[in-house]
């Protein structure tokens, strides 16, 4: 599921340098996902397009259902602005979605970098993997369960980077909602191994935060969708240090 998005082979360091050169406080979604992909984290296959016609053409290279997302440095909350449309099954639906999105008031008045057209991740449990730079301890990595678990209950576990495999496993055991990963309420268990793997790629010995911790003030992979077989970073945000 490696991403391409038309960006070619940009190294993680170059992605950060480009954002800094553009005086951006954060990496945009596409750059964030490329950064993750550079460390081996799975991201959806995607294409960046500029208009409805190109979007329809790009559908031939992607496997539906697809999701369309607006790319704009002005829109922090894409969904609130009407900039996310999920479950698109055909080129015609994609084309209509692009046209509709361009007419949203918040989007009409914003700077637009383009549209991100992505394959949708398989159904799974929503997990959050995050990172932040502690002034005294340096990079910390976080794991939590998505939705109300992280937003309302603050059911998260932090560790100081670099984490070991055992540290990462203990982070998951520590979550109050850990039973969801094991398949509570009649669902099938999801791959713990895949989450541990992402935690190591983000917060492990030669992971993303240990390598680029000085540049990253905060990181949010929300959600990471975890199924029985793997984990895909569906949205990613990296805030750069000042």
């Amino acid at each position, binding site marked *: 599921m490696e991403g391409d998005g038309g960006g070619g082979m940009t190294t993680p360091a170059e992605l950060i340098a480009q954002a800094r050169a553009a005086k951006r406080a954060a990496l945009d979604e596409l750059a964030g996902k490329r950064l993750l992909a550079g460390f081996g984290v799975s991201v959806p296959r995607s294409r960046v397009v500029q208009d409805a016609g190109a979007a329809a053409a790009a559908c031939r290279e992607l496997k539906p259902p697809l999701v369309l997302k607006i790319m704009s440095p002005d829109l922090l909350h894409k969904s609130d602005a009407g900039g996310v449309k999920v479950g698109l099954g055909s080129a015609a639906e994609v084309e209509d979605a692009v046209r509709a999105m361009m007419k949203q008031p918040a989007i009409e008045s914003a700077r637009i970098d383009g549209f991100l057209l992505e394959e949708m991740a398989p159904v799974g449990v929503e997990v959050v993997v995050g990172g932040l730079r502690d002034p005294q301890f340096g990079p910390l990595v976080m794991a939590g369960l998505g939705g109300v678990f992280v937003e309302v209950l603050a059911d998260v576990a932090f*560790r*100081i980077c670099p984490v070991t495999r055992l540290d990462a496993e*203990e982070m998951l055991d*520590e979550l109050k909602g850990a039973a969801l990963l094991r398949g509570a309420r009649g669902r099938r268990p999801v791959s713990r191994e895949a989450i541990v793997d992402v935690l190591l790629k983000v917060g492990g010995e030669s992971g993303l935060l240990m390598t680029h911790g000085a540049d990253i003030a905060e990181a949010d992979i929300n959600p990471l969708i975890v199924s029985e077989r793997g984990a895909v970073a569906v949205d990613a945000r990296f805030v750069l240090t000042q």
Partner: protein
Amino acid sequence: MTKNEKRVTSNVIEQFRPLFEPKTVAVVGASTEGAALPNIFIRRIREFGYNGAIYPIHPAAKEIDGLPAYRSLGETPEPVDYAYIAIAAAQVPPLLEEARGRVRFAQVISSGFGEVDEGRELQLALVAAARTGGMRLIGPNCLGLHTPRGRVTFTETGPVEAGPVGVVSQSGGLGTDIIRRGLTRGLGFSGLVTVGNCADIGANDLLEFYLADAQTRVIGLYLETAGDGRRLFEILRGARAGKPVVILKGGRTRQGRAAAASHTGSLAGDDRAWVALSKQTGCVMADTLDGFIDALLAFQALAPQPRHPTRRVVLFGNGGGASVLATDQLSRIGLDVDTFERQTVDDLARLKLPPGTSITNPVDAPVGTLQQEDGRVAEKILEVIYGSGRPDALVMHLNLSAFVGRTRDEVLDNLVQAALRVQARFPGQAHFLLVLRSDGEPALEERKRVFRARAVALGIPVYDEIANAGQALAALAFHERFVQSRNR
């Protein structure tokens, strides 16, 4: 240990030897009237048995407290291992500059440096002066150090033996509390250093010393800032919980942080990082001074059992309600006070104990039972419990007020001796902790004090309430589980 690790260990030991075992001590700030803090320091180290050279430093006086005085740190007959400095802040940097490389460690007691806004620059000047003078600096804004092996102390203690507990305290006053309360409780120190603002030497440096030091088996840190948190993490992770480390961290809450910032003049870390530090390195986080001392005492007295981390606790003593409440509290902190299995209950029933004695866990044995055979009945009960109940820990709790006027004094001793004999027959099975409960009545407190001292002399950790013993056991259990999980 690799060859490289050995070299680092012997380096850090050699580096700090003059601090912990000074052969020469300079004292700056003593007055000819003999009333200043440094004069008291001279008296205290003499009383503590220090018999190396003491060099008072004074701009004019020929003699202080009967000792010849010298004009500067650079003019003493022998180089100075440890200098104790308590003069006005602004006078300290010029004093250090004159040391000409003849001072190993200077501890600056004076305040008025980085802990207040107007002292920030002076602290930078202090660090530069220490470098020019060729010494390592401890403090400023601290109270001193307590090193039984070097017979040097800053606090009034009376005669004390060295012990296995090495402490670093970022607060001087709390350092005094730790020593005095700790000694009363039976803690023995391999050293305690108050480090104040940590302008040069910080808690991490002394942590490395204690980890390498053969006299130190247990380490306690009172911290208000992490200083270099990353280095703390790396040191602790590298140490693999080989020695238990207990951290009392001030400023873990938002309000506590505001107080800490005004106290030590630097930004306190975020609590979640401390929780992570504990989970990743096995260090125990204590929440209160008493909790800190309780945990250190447990680690001093009890050998961790990582092969069967503490979980099953047997409560044995007089006080039904107290043991019911304690059962609840222990289960809240992850310990089990499980009822005994059939076999154990049957075996206890065969002892035909007097009515009112419960024969399941918690074992409530009224004084009437405990005083049978002058207390030796406890041996039979504990023999059964250890034999088939398989506890990881035994907490013997004695409510002393219930013994008053009803028993002979030997009964308490006999109860403890009975427990120790059973302990000896089941080596490595259960941690043994004693709780002496009292009602605060002066005569009873005195009896408790005497009895506590006897128990402490036998190496038994003694607690005031079952809840405190429970918290200490939880700390021990946390350490044991960590060691077990990292050695699978």
